[in-house]
């Protein structure tokens, strides 16, 4: 196994500066708050397709062991915990984890947060029914090694779901340049355009690792409703799921 770290120190330092702002819905992470409903709906429905129709619509992920890689402030971990999942959430940045932990604790949400990388957990031989990596692969030092670790963390019969920004001229112009400099939705330098990942650059390595990979699903701005919706257009943000046999 490749033991090179997938963590990128300069990326981690970037997120330490804004750790306090994760739950500020008008702050630098506002776009992630707005992405959430569509991302969560995809995860919930894709999990139901994999693990069968849930007994409870309020807690459809009841009993599933879920790993959130690059959890940040817990924006996705918390809803998944409310949906019944047994959450382990990891991030490389310590200040962020303190914020995440305190926020979950205040609500009595049981989430196991720890400062670790995907390969740390893979080395320990841990496995989960559902592994999610939301908007994190574009911040890693080595996409191939990251995918290898994520696949290893997915239990046989389990599901791996990633989301990220495509490397297209449109995504570079809008999701990176406009979002950082024109709209100021996110701090300048949040994304390095050259580190963006195309769907095939995720799908091919996962297939080589023996996973069955879905076609990617796009996340498009819904101007009417002010949020994002799932779509067939993968030129900007997209989600991709893979099942491990």
């Amino acid at each position, binding site marked *: 196994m490749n033991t090179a770290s997938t963590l990128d120190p300069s990326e981690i330092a970037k997120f330490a500066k804004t750790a306090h702002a994760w739950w500020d819905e008008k702050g630098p992470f506002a776009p992630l708050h707005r992405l*959430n409903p569509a991302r969560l709906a995809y995860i919930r429905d894709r999990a139901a397709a994999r693990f069968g129709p849930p007994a409870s619509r309020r807690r459809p992920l009841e009993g599933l062991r879920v790993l959130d890689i690059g959890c940040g402030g817990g924006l996705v971990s918390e809803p998944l915990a409310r949906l019944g999942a047994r959450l382990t959430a990891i991030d490389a940045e310590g200040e962020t984890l303190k914020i995440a932990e305190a926020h979950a604790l*205040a609500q009595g949400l049981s989430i196991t947060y720890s400062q670790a990388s995907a390969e740390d957990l893979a080395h320990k031989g841990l496995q989960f029914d559902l592994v999610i990596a939301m908007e994190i692969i574009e911040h890693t030092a080595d996409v191939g090694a990251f995918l290898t670790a994520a696949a290893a963390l997915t239990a046989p019969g389990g599901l791996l779901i990633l989301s990220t920004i495509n490397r297209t001229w449109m995504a570079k112009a809008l999701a990176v340049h406009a979002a950082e400099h024109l709209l100021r939705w996110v701090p300048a330098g949040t994304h390095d355009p050259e580190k963006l990942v195309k769907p095939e650059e995720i799908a091919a390595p996962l297939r080589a690792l023996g996973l069955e990979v879905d076609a990617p699903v796009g996340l498009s701005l819904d101007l009417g409703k*002010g949020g994002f919706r799932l779509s067939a257009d993968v030129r900007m943000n997209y989600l991709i799921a893979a099942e491990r046999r």
Partner: protein
Amino acid sequence: MTKQTDTCDVLVAGGGMVGLTLALALRQAGLEVIAVDGEVPAAQLDPAYDGRASAIAFASWRMLKTLGVVERIGAHAEPIEEIVVSDGRPAGSSRRSGPSSLFLHFDRRELNPGPEGEALGYMVENRRMRLALAQQARETGLDLRAPDAVESHSVLPGQIRVQLRSGRVVQAGLLAAADGRDSRSRRAAGLRTAGWVHKQAALVVTVRAQRPHRGIAHEYFLPGGPFAILPLSDNRACVVWTDRAPTVGALLALKDGDFLAELKARFGDFLGDLTVEGPRFSYPLGVHVAEKLIAPGVALVGDAGHGVHPIAGQGLNMGLRDCAALAEVLVDAARLGQDLGATATLARYDRWRRFDNALLAWATEGFNTLFSNDWPLLRLARDLGMSAVSSIPPARRFFMKAAGGELGDLPLLLRGEALAL
């Protein structure tokens, strides 16, 4: 001393018509709800508490049917078959009282033909509506705390902590403020309102008519303000007489016989002889709209968020539409595990309702200014305008659909579909 803490998904402040409707909708969907109201439950049901009747638009009616409330109202609802809007003028002026020759006429048969067609709306006395909602709340086991009230609230991560007057503390995902036009929770959330109090007031009285009203609602525009005759069950009618506040004060003070004479002079004799039933009520009028319907952990519904001139019968309907939209937004959010009080969750509700509410508030306001005026040219213009709308079937159907709450992106409950987690 240990404080008693209860938890729920949504705490509804206010157990009036809008508050109870919201509570029933959320509960039917499977969310945990606690409702609090400042008065003992029996107070609202006293005949002297509320003399008004409401025109429930057909979309709102579908929701009430879905929630099991219509069944409890039973025969106390009167279907509105037709609406006749005209430029009236009291007797003693140049013309006799009653409807003028130029008028706007809406007929449900044009929208929903056949004897089984859906009515334009239903007239229900507020007292009957409150009774039906209270019964349904009791039958479905709604956790209604009354008399009790929200003292204060504080927003915490993922929840809102509400201190009740009784000393109990409730931790909820959201505080839904349905506590009326002087909403305490709205003020506590720092949401401002814009609006003003009118020089007009409304006098409300119930009459029994000699001849059958056949489910026809009349609205006359008199110089002092609109005068509405709304059909009630048992061949009664609710009269909403809007006039300058001092005039309304004087009308309240009149002896029964003198009042009846004044009433007949405006009402006309098209329904034969009239008898007044029950007391006269008066209500001050005003318009207000909150700057936003949401704050962290708080959503405003009904009069807490907006109040309108009663001219188009839209006040309660706007509140009921708020309930349908908010319930759907919260159920969808709960199914995603989202924080119910987060702005990301509530923004959809605000966007869904604010435009409709603000538009209606200012549109009915303009309508009232236009019609509460006796300037001859304005009078001619509005008569011609009304007959123009009346002679164009698509325009007529559009107005009927708008008044029925049928336009725009309808929440499921307003289409008569139940919400479920």
